[in-house]
Every structure is written in C-alpha cells, then in structure tokens.
C-alpha cells in the first residue's frame, strides 16, 4: 500500500470520528451533519478502494480521473454553500421577528407602566 494511501485513510477516519464527536456533544445538528458524514464516508471508501475512481471515470468516459474528483467536489461544495445561504436567510428572518416581538413587548409594558404612574 503506498504511503499516500495510508495517510489518506488515517485522515478520513479521523475526520469521521471528529464529526461523530461534534454530533454527540450537540455542537453540530444532525440535519447539517448528514452531508458531512456522507462525504467523509465517501473519502474513506475511496481511500481504501483506489481502483474505484478509475472504474467510475472509465464508465463516465472521463479522460483523466482526477478531473472527475475536482468536478464532483466543486459541485458538492457549491450546492452545500447554497444550502448554507438558505439556512442563514431563514435564521435572519427568525432573528428579525424575535427582535421585533421582544421590542414591542417591552415598549407596551413600559407605556402601561408610564400610564399607571401618571
């Protein structure tokens, strides 16, 4: 087994352990973790099964197997980034609504206190 393969296996297994630990500790929500678990499993799988990329590249008629890795990885990253933007937009909207509700509750309380004092 070539050295780079051993290094890759160790790194991808470590990454998988790290992600599982984050979920157990509650620092990463499961719905966002699914993508990470799958991509890490993917890394682990192909670090063991070296011929896999060549087989798949050959099947898809990709001339140079590394190109397939780059294309697939960039596509996956872009889609995940889009997903994160959606999450952030939702959070921002919820944050706005919370802020408005809180501010109005406080203002109502304050103005009724003012009236009672007068």
């Amino acid at each position, binding site marked *: 087994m070539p050295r780079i393969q051993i290094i890759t296996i160790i790194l991808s297994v470590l990454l998988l352990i790290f992600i599982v630990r984050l979920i157990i500790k509650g620092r990463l929500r499961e719905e966002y973790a699914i993508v990470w678990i799958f991509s890490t499993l993917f890394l682990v799988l192909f670090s063991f099964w070296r011929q896999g990329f060549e087989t798949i590249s050959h099947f898809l008629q990709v001339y140079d197997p590394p190109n397939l890795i780059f294309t697939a990885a960039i596509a996956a990253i872009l889609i995940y980034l889009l997903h994160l933007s959606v999450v952030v937009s939702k959070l921002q909207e919820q944050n706005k609504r919370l*802020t*408005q509700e809180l*501010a109005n509750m406080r*203002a109502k309380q*304050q103005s009724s206190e003012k009236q009672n004092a007068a």
Partner: protein
Amino acid sequence: MQQKIAVIIPAYNEESAIEAVIASVNSLNSSASENRYIPLVINDCSKDRTGELIDKADCIAVHLAVNLGIGGAVQTGFLFALENGFDYVIQIDGDGQHPPQYIPLMLQELKAKNLDVIIGSRFLTNEGFQSTLARRMGINYFHHLNKWLVGVSIKDSTSGMRMLNRKALEIVSEYYPDEYPEPEAIVLYAVNNLNIGEFPVQMNERQGGVSSINTAGSVYYMFKVTLAIFFTYLRLKSKK
C-alpha cells in the same frame, strides 16, 4: 369618534433632531383636534444618546435589541400599531426632513379619496428641498420602473413619508423589505391592489445625522432595489 394615528419614527443615531421631531408631532394634538397623534419611535440600536432621549420624551419608545436596518425597524412600528388598535400609521424620518404639520392634511386626503396608502411627495409642486440631481435621477428611475411594472405612477418613489390605513398595515406587517424598502414597497402595495396616492409636501434638508446612502453605496442601492423590485413582483404575482 376619536381615531388613533401612530407616527412611526425610525431612529438610528438621531440625537440631534429626534426631540424636536417628537415635540412637533405632539403639538398636532394641542388644538381641539379629534384625532390623537402618538409618536412611536423605533430606536434601531443607536450608538449615541437617541435611546436615552426618547425614553424621557413624550412618546412610545421601542428599543430594538439588535440593529435591523430601516425596513425591519419600520415594520416593528407597523406590528405595534396593528396589535395595539391604531387606526392609521404614518412613517416619517427621525432627522426632521418631513414636517409633521402635513400629517393631518394627508389623513384628510387619504379619507377623502378613499386611498389605502398616501405618499408625501416633493415633486408634485417642486417646492422645498429637492435633493441633488443624482438622487433625483435615481428617484425618477424607480418612478418609471414601477410605472412600467405595475402601472402606478409615484413621482417621489423613495419618499419615506407615507401614511397607511389598517388594510395596508396588515399587508406590510406580513412582509416588508429590509434594506431600502421604499421603491419596493410601492410594488408591494400595487400588487395587493391597494389604492395609492401622492400628496404635495415641502420637505426640509436633514437637520442632523447622516443619510443611509452614500456615493459608493448608491450603485449597490440601485442594483439591489431593482433586483428586489423584480423578485417581489414575481413572488407576489405567483402567489395570486
């Protein structure tokens, strides 16, 4: 019957002008007017003494815990007015640009013409502060964009002085743009079939504070608002 009108004043770092604006709104009540005009100041996380000043002033002070920007701040006022039984709302700037003495006149016109929204306009009589040429060109661009898209001609498309009845209030409480909301809101009113009118107002130059739109920001402003207008139009149209 006495009617309650919330005068929504979004304020971000307006310590130099805010007290005078609140006082002039309150002075509308001094005469034997049948309506009550209540200043509703939304302090959008000001870094100066605005928050302190409005707590002492005769108004309803609403303090946002995080900075929401002009749209989110104004919408806070809409929600407050809707939940607390106000009959009308009018939004004016916290920097003294919009003279409150026009408010009762705008209300009269709104009722007389059976409008849902009435917008204070500098460009009907072209009197008072007219802004710079570059800004007038921008305002005119949004005027024509809205006219072309929804067939509504509002000359002062970026005017922040606008009065709404409860029908319109319910719509803007549901959705209101966050950033630079004025031109986009016109599309929002129009697609919801609200009756929109304009009323001639002589505005002042700002008495304090800084504009939220600087020269570098104006290109972003034009682009962002144009995009937002199209998307709002498409979203609302597809819902119907």
